[in-house]
């Protein structure tokens, strides 16, 4: 591999590196991954609150909770093989749903979702779902800094059924909360002796999030 | 060109005074001070000798060796004062002394290079070549003039063993300096010319209050 490709400087986060970052967020910010109505713990520390679903023609409402029992898995193009072992047990990542296929500059976040609906007074009816989020890296530049964020282009949820809109909503909350805060500074592995100017990237390829630049 | 003024002694010069009368003389620099020369009658058969006082200029004042602050000599002996190095910045000085007797009395005796008297001498070592003209003044004989031509010393001429002597006579019967112009005596090895690094000594055969000065 010719990493610098004619530039002076190359830096990359690999898939395993970003995964470790996700692992840290999963441990530090549980409320991104746990959603419930108040009756099921929503609004407490670590659980984002949801409104109960109204039942048409009734005064009652449905209490439910949605959570991600394990940390979502991120994969970078051209991940066609199995991902490297994860530090926390995760279900094996299935192949991409049809008709999706890996493209250059693409990442995919796969998450297993668990959903429970409360049948009063205290019975939980549970189910599970799979979520795929497809996206690409984006460079954000302000006057002083530049960061890379991961931007979602598509979501595919399997087995949602009529609860599709609810799951979509929660997925948005989770992904927005997670990804909009996950701004990776472009100089986070290059501080110290030199400043640099971004010239190419960010690109996802070879299972890495890559940038190239020249020394400032 | 060298500057010569017998009233102000410089490092390459000396003043000589022969003591003819016994007595206790006090002397000093510029004015009479606490230095003492005791003169006693000369024992028969003893030759005259010269006591050389080597003057130094330190910490702003003129000094002499401690063992010469109280000299004992005999009549006919001479004392000379000299600064034996070319230390830069040394000012000119004069020597003044007398035997303490009332001024003008028959026994009064004094000495000073500011006023050369009979048997006094003054010497100068010439550093730079040139044609020197000098005046001898102050004596009863008016002003006498003399000259000396000093040439650059060839490396072939070794140092002289004796100075060139000029006899001054500015008393009742004044005469021009002898010899004039100043030369070494005929027959002197390596010629009669006065060169740089040669010494000339003027001695007073007659006269008093004499001053020698280049023009």
């Amino acid at each position, binding site marked *: 591999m010719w990493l610098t490709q004619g530039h002076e400087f190359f830096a990359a*986060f690999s898939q395993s*590196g970003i995964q470790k970052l996700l692992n840290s967020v999963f441990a*530090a910010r549980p409320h991104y991954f746990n959603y419930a109505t108040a009756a099921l713990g929503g609004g407490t520390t670590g659980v984002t609150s949801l409104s109960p679903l109204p039942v048409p023609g009734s005064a009652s409402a449905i209490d439910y909770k949605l959570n991600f029992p394990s940390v979502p898995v991120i994969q970078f193009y051209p991940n066609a093989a199995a991902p490297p072992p994860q530090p926390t047990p995760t279900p094996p990542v299935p192949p991409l749903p049809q008709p999706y296929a890996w493209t250059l500059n693409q990442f995919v976040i796969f998450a297993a979702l668990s959903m429970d609906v409360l049948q009063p007074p205290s019975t939980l009816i549970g189910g599970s779902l799979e979520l795929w989020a497809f996206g690409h890296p984006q460079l954000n530049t302000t006057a002083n800094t530049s960061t890379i964020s991961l931007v979602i282009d*598509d979501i595919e949820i399997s087995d949602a059924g009529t609860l599709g809109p609810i799951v979509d909503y929660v997925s948005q909350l989770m992904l927005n909360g997670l990804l909009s805060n996950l701004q990776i500074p472009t100089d986070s592995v290059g501080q110290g002796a030199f400043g640099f100017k971004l010239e190419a990237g960010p690109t996802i390829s070879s299972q890495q999030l890559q940038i190239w630049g020249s020394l400032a | 060109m060298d500057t010569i003024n017998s009233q102000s002694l410089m490092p*390459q010069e000396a003043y000589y005074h022969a003591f003819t009368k016994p007595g206790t003389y006090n002397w000093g620099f510029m004015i009479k001070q606490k230095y003492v020369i005791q003169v006693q009658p000369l024992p028969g058969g003893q030759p005259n000798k010269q006591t050389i006082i080597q003057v130094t200029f330190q910490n702003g004042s003129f000094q002499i060796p401690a063992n010469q602050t109280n000299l004992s000599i005999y009549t006919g002996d001479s004392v000379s004062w000299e600064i034996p190095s070319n230390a830069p910045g040394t000012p000119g000085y004069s020597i003044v002394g007398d035997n303490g007797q009332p001024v003008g009395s028959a026994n009064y005796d004094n000495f000073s290079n500011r006023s050369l008297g009979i048997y006094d001498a003054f010497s100068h*070592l010439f550093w*730079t070549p040139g044609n020197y003209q000098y005046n001898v003044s102050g004596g009863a004989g008016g002003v006498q003039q003399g000259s000396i031509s000093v040439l650059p010393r060839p490396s072939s001429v070794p*140092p002289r063993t004796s100075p060139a002597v000029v006899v001054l006579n500015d008393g009742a019967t004044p005469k021009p300096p002898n010899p004039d112009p100043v030369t070494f005596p005929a027959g002197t090895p390596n010629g009669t010319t006065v060169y740089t690094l040669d010494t000339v000594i003027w001695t007073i055969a007659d006269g008093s209050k004499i001053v020698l000065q280049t023009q």
Partner: protein
Amino acid sequence: MTSGKIQKPRPHVGKAANPFANVQVPKVVPATPAIAPASDATVALSQDALTLLVQQALDKPISGQNSGSWGPFVAGYSLNLNVSGGAITLVDLGQQIRLDSVVVSGIINLSIGINLGAILPNICVPPSRACITLFGHQICTPQVCISWPTISVPLPPILVPPIGLSVNFQVAAQQDGSNWDVILKVFPFSILIDLTPTVNTVIDAVEAAVRNTLGQIPGIGSLIDDLVDGVLNALQAVIDTILGAVEDLLKQLIDLIDLFSPTVPFRITQIPATQKILPAGAPGDAEVDLTISSITPVIVTPTPPPPLPIPAPPPELVISVNFA
């Protein structure tokens, strides 16, 4: 298809219909599967980048001064140096970084003080007193003994003969408090300096100053040549040592440059050991960090695939970073 924030919820029409059926997603299959990278993050610097970093580090003026005494001679010397140039070659075999074509040039200001009294013989004029008999007694006239001054000889500024430096480094990573540094460790090297052409300049200047000073002593005349020779002989005995001291200062100044200092290694880049990605917020919003567990710098020759340009590019410095 949007970029940025997620779209609002779309109405589902049941599991059967694929809501994304109309969305254009390129269906490109990669040519060859790439090997999963071994480290969590990677930084690579090209040979040209290292050359730039090194040139920046070198391109600073250097100066220093010292003095010393050697018998009757005192020398004060100051150096104003420029270091320029430098080209880096990364050597895969043996993991070495070679720096060539560094040029040290500049100016030496040297002044020499001489205590002539400690060298020149005691000379009195005349060598012994000249005596005569006057009016019956022996009169001897003074000798004047010459007191020799101390003189100072300024020399014209001496150009340092341009010195070329070639140096080898090894690259390493070390933890320094809360940071990881990727550093260059310099192998001991020798600096060849030859100031012997300067010897004649110094001797000529001293001769001129001594001759001028002695020439002002009246009557010195024919003595002057021997006296000057005496001083120059004394100088010959120490001139190499004096210039050796100037060379020592030159070497010390070069050693003090970070890049060449054996004790202060040159830092290529610095990475905080713990990086705060998200600060702590409300309860439930703990800080999110990445902590580095290892850093390994290695020089690697680019290999195919993908096809490399012709001629093949030079090796790169590849820094592999792993997080806890």
